[in-house]
């Protein structure tokens, strides 16, 4: 085998798919095709004629994809899963990261391994990004709740903003709780009393 490899990336998550695409481009693979939907995929696979297929494990259509490999006249070539069945480290890393790769025509391992490694590292990077985003969102929500709690204390006790915050903090310390938990209880309790 020689020449450029064509790589088909099947991922419902468009952002993640384009992150993988970018990574593969940067690594010198310019034939990367993204597919988000499984409809009509048999024909697409025949048209695209990929050497490697990368698919995310959250995709409920993985069984359908494997079935296509078994029966479709469009994809007649032998299919190997992952890079090499014997390379258990790569397989575990891939499953851990949430990705699976199929080699369509028995390519040499050294040619495919970097592609799988790239997909794994991009999947991991994406998970980290998602986790960070979630953290940032939670932090923002927490800050809003604390602000509301401060407002309630200021209004009901006639305190300044700093005094209200200090009171919340002291209460939290006294009860060995987090300040956000105290603030949440206060907001909920106040909501109940208002109704």
């Amino acid at each position, binding site marked *: 085998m020689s020449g450029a490899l064509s790589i088909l990336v099947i991922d419902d998550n468009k952002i993640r798919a384009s992150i993988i695409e970018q990574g593969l481009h940067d690594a010198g693979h310019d034939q990367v095709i993204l597919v988000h939907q499984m*409809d009509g995929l048999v024909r697409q696979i025949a048209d695209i004629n990929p050497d490697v297929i990368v698919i995310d*494990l959250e995709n409920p*259509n*993985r*069984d*359908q994809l494997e*079935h296509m490999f078994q029966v479709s006249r469009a994809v007649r070539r032998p299919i190997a*899963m992952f890079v090499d069945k014997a390379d*258990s480290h790569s397989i575990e890393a891939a499953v851990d990261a949430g990705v699976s790769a199929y080699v369509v025509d028995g390519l040499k391992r050294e040619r495919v391994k970097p592609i799988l490694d790239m997909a794994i590292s991009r999947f991991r990077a994406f998970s980290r990004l998602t986790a960070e985003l979630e953290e940032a969102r939670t932090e923002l929500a927490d800050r809003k709740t604390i602000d509301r709690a401060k407002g309630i204390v200021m209004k009901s006790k006639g305190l300044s903003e700093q005094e209200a915050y200090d009171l919340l903090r002291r209460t939290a310390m006294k009860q060995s709780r987090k300040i956000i938990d105290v603030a949440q209880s206060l907001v909920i309790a106040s909501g109940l009393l208002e109704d």
Partner: protein
Amino acid sequence: METNLKPVIAGFIPLLDSAVLVAASELGFAEREGVALKLVRETSWANIRDRIAVGHFDIAHMLAPMPIAASLNLTSLSVPMLAPMLLGLGGNAITVAAGLWKEMAAAGADPGGDPASTGRALGEIITLHHGAGAPPLRFGVVHPFSGHAYELRYWLAATGIDPDKDVEITVLAPQLMADALAAGQLDGYCVGEPWNTAAVAAGTGRIATYKQAIWPDSPEKVLGVTEKWAEANPDTLAALVRAFSAAADWCAVPDNAPQLAELLSRPDLLACDREICLPALTGRMQLGPDLQKHVPDFLAFSGGAKAAPMAVHGKWFYEQMVRWGQTDRTAESARKVEQIFSSAAYRSALGLTDLPSENSIRMFDGKRF
């Protein structure tokens, strides 16, 4: 949480026949046997197979033919596996689009789902369509190595339809079947509950026949373990078998059906409407808009002798794999299959000494295996 409980991680697919695993984990049956059972929901059978192969899961809810396919190296990431217990019997049905059912009914299909009658009617419709130059009907199953694929193929072939030439069979995830039928992408499918009832409830599908009529009391899902794990953890496996057997007995009590339906419908489990879980759990199947039929043991859970795997079960699945060209027949494979479906581990865990001697299997068309 007690720390001396043995941790076991189990992969499952959100289907009614994950009930035994769910009950064992949620209702204390596993804990009572000293096991901390943690369930992990999966989205595809391929994921179940891969994650048990790389050791993410200790055990899994598996399609009965899967341990055979894995042990005979018929799919990627195969490892030698065992099926030490049946987790569910029956529970599948073959649903056709409402429009196709109308044609079948006009051709004399039995409304009660008799497989010989509905298959014959379908054959007539296929001949008519073929004569009119229409594209072949398309049926969905959940996996190439599944009871669904073999039941559908057996039913078609026994009634004179060639599953490879006269129809098209494709694979689709269970939860997507009803929508695919409604959208006209499929003309019918064979799937486990509640995904037949879902199409009947939506008015888009009609149950044509069901697993219990095609092959009574047949294995559907099994407990799947790798040979390696079973060898390294014999005590844990025995404890699990006892826990699952007790859980299965609980699931089999009709009075528990409402509680079980409530539990299974939870967002972290099947995430479906509680009402669509009830028909299969109670055996009161709504076959179509105007016909409810009581099918005893439509989906059966059972401890004791009924949940024991038997070599003849494995043999039937293996015969189908050979019949449909998925593998060649060899004496070596046949011997492996008998071991995979051996009842030895099950019997010793439960102290069962007198399992009924191995009966042969009787199919709806009178054939025996």
